């Protein structure tokens, strides 16, 4: 079977690969969406925090002998804690101001993080082995699916939907959503909003670090691994609708698929296709696919 001259099996495998990439987009854009939605901060250092997640895993493995599974928990905690410090010492001062300042501050932080890691570890990056349990792959008929990639999809989707559930369906989530709008009033109702916000930022950052650990065995762990990703992830968040949790998850997955298809039909354009989609979406639906106008 062929579709536009492309064998069906190849198309199938491309879609699957697209889904895998989509999982990364989903989990990264989810973190961004949470931070934007609840703090009104455009977290430009998200890419750097993703990178640091991967590096923490690498350092843990090579310097401390900590294995992948522990790192999967450990790295988000470490980087999340760093996020908490950043929020407490810096971001806190910016909430009343325009988004622009949050964006600039986190941009500056990204420069610092990337610069320091580059200086310490060079640019070419480090290899992180696939954990033993997940090595190899299975032949699923139309393609060879590395087990590790299958794991990535499962892990990412689980985390995404758990997060969505917490924010949309629990009381804690309701506080968060209300706190986004009018923190003073939520405080007046007796809720410790500053703590909530700190926790939220830490959590968003931890999500980035989690994605970083997931990515470590696939990509080279390198200081710039996040800097090119970040702009695409922004686009995902915008297409989904800023601040919409489900929007960013679904859009992340969907864009992964579309990008995968572009790589077959017009590979040169695969880097730009998400922006084309973004323009079209925003022209038709000004607040993004899932955003509230």
């Amino acid at each position, binding site marked *: 079977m062929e579709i536009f001259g492309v*064998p069906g*099996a*190849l198309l199938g*495998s*491309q879609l699957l*690969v*697209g889904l*895998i*990439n989509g999982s990364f987009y989903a989990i990264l854009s989810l973190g961004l969406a949470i931070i934007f939605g609840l703090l009104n901060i455009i977290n430009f250092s998200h890419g750097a925090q993703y990178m640091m997640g991967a590096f923490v895993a690498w350092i843990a493995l090579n310097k401390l002998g900590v294995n992948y599974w522990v790192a999967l928990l450990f790295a988000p905690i470490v980087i999340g804690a760093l996020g908490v410090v950043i929020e407490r010492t810096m971001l806190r001062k910016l909430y009343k101001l325009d988004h622009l300042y949050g964006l600039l501050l986190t941009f500056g932080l990204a420069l610092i993080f990337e*610069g320091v890691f*580059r200086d310490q570890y*060079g*640019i*070419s*990056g*480090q*290899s992180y*082995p*696939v954990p033993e349990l997940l090595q190899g*792959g299975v032949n699923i008929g139309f*393609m*060879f699916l*590395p087990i*590790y*990639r299958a794991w990535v999809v499962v892990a990412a989707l689980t985390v995404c939907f758990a997060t969505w559930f917490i924010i949309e369906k629990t009381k804690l989530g309701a506080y968060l959503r209300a706190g986004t709008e009018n923190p003073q009033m939520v405080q007046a109702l007796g809720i410790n909003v500053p703590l909530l916000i700190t926790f939220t930022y830490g959590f968003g950052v931890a999500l980035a670090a989690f994605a970083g650990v997931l990515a470590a*065995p*696939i*990509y*080279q762990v*390198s200081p*710039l*691994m996040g800097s*090119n*990703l970040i702009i695409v992830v922004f686009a995902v968040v915008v297409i989904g609708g800023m601040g919409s949790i489900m929007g960013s998850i679904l859009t992340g997955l969907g864009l992964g698929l579309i990008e*995968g298809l572009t*790589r*077959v039909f017009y*590979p*040169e*354009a*695969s*880097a*730009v296709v998400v922006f084309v989609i973004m323009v079209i979406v925003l022209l038709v639906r000004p607040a993004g696919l899932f955003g509230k106008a």
Partner: protein
Amino acid sequence: QISDNTVKVGVLTDMSGTYSDLAGAGAVLATEMAIADFIAEAKPAFKVEMVSADHQNKADIASNKAREWFEREGVDTATELVTTSTALAVMKVAKEMNRVALMSGPASTPITNEQCNDVTVHYTYDTYALANGTAKAVTQQGGDTWFFLTADYAFGQALEKDSSAVVIANGGKVLGSVRHPFPAADFSSFLLQAQASGAKIIGLANAGADTTNAIKQAAEFGITPKQSLAGLLMFISDVHSLGLQATQGMYLTTGFYWDLDDDTRAWSKRFFEKQKRMPTMVQAGQYSSVLHYLRAVQATGTDEAGKVMAHMKATPIKDFFGKNGRIREDGRMVHDMYLAQVKTPAESKYPWDYYNIRQTIPAEEAFQPLAQSRCPLVKK
């Protein structure tokens, strides 16, 4: 005869970006070593100084800096210049100011073809030599069907074009290619297309992080070892960062390997002591080119570009790097290149023991023949 009685060497390189590991600080160190060795050996009557700057892989920064160096700081030669766009920009400034440009970092062949000029030396390698070395050897050894994974920009396309020609000339077939955006992180889609093509060899016409990620993911998807990868532009720094597990068995062409003979080992040890890494061919080439330049200045007693260039071209290069080296009229420095195969982890006995040298490609065969040159300087 020598302005200010000082010869100033400018190292314009990527200190912080994608190429900072293969050039960068290591290239600055190599320059310092070259200057120190030159002073020790020649006891020149003039002073030799070095300045360095980060061009951040941006052509405008590079040209701006080069211009400033030439105009304000009396720099006599701009060197290294990894990334073709910066190289092209600087060689024009050098021509305008009549200074010498020594290029050990950049890869593209236009430097010695359409864009060539008489103050530029392209020193270490170029895409033609790499394609020629790797593609030819691999095809001849039975890897006769190819599929290219090409970085979608001028350099990648040139590499693909040159390699395809070599493959076909040696009786092989090119089954297809896919152009990926530059830079890219995820190659699985492209690799799957390469896999679907059924080609024996997947040629990686890209560089740096793109190459390393592609190699890593090829292993992950079970593409290697069923199909083989040929890195068309790989440096020892890439092998080092990927590790032998992922790269074992790959063919690559290099202008230099630290563990080749006693001379290379001696120099590389000195380099290693300072940099804690073994030198790449760019860094070794940088040393060699600067030394060659300084010797020419000493010999001619001037820093005027024309005279120095004439002497450099007239004098064969014989050092640990430039085996059978000479600079042709198009500015191409030709020297022996090596076809290397990456060792298996078991074969590797000590740190940085990465390559088996399979073949020495003689200087005259390694590079694009003058007859094919499109450089106006070449009289036909």
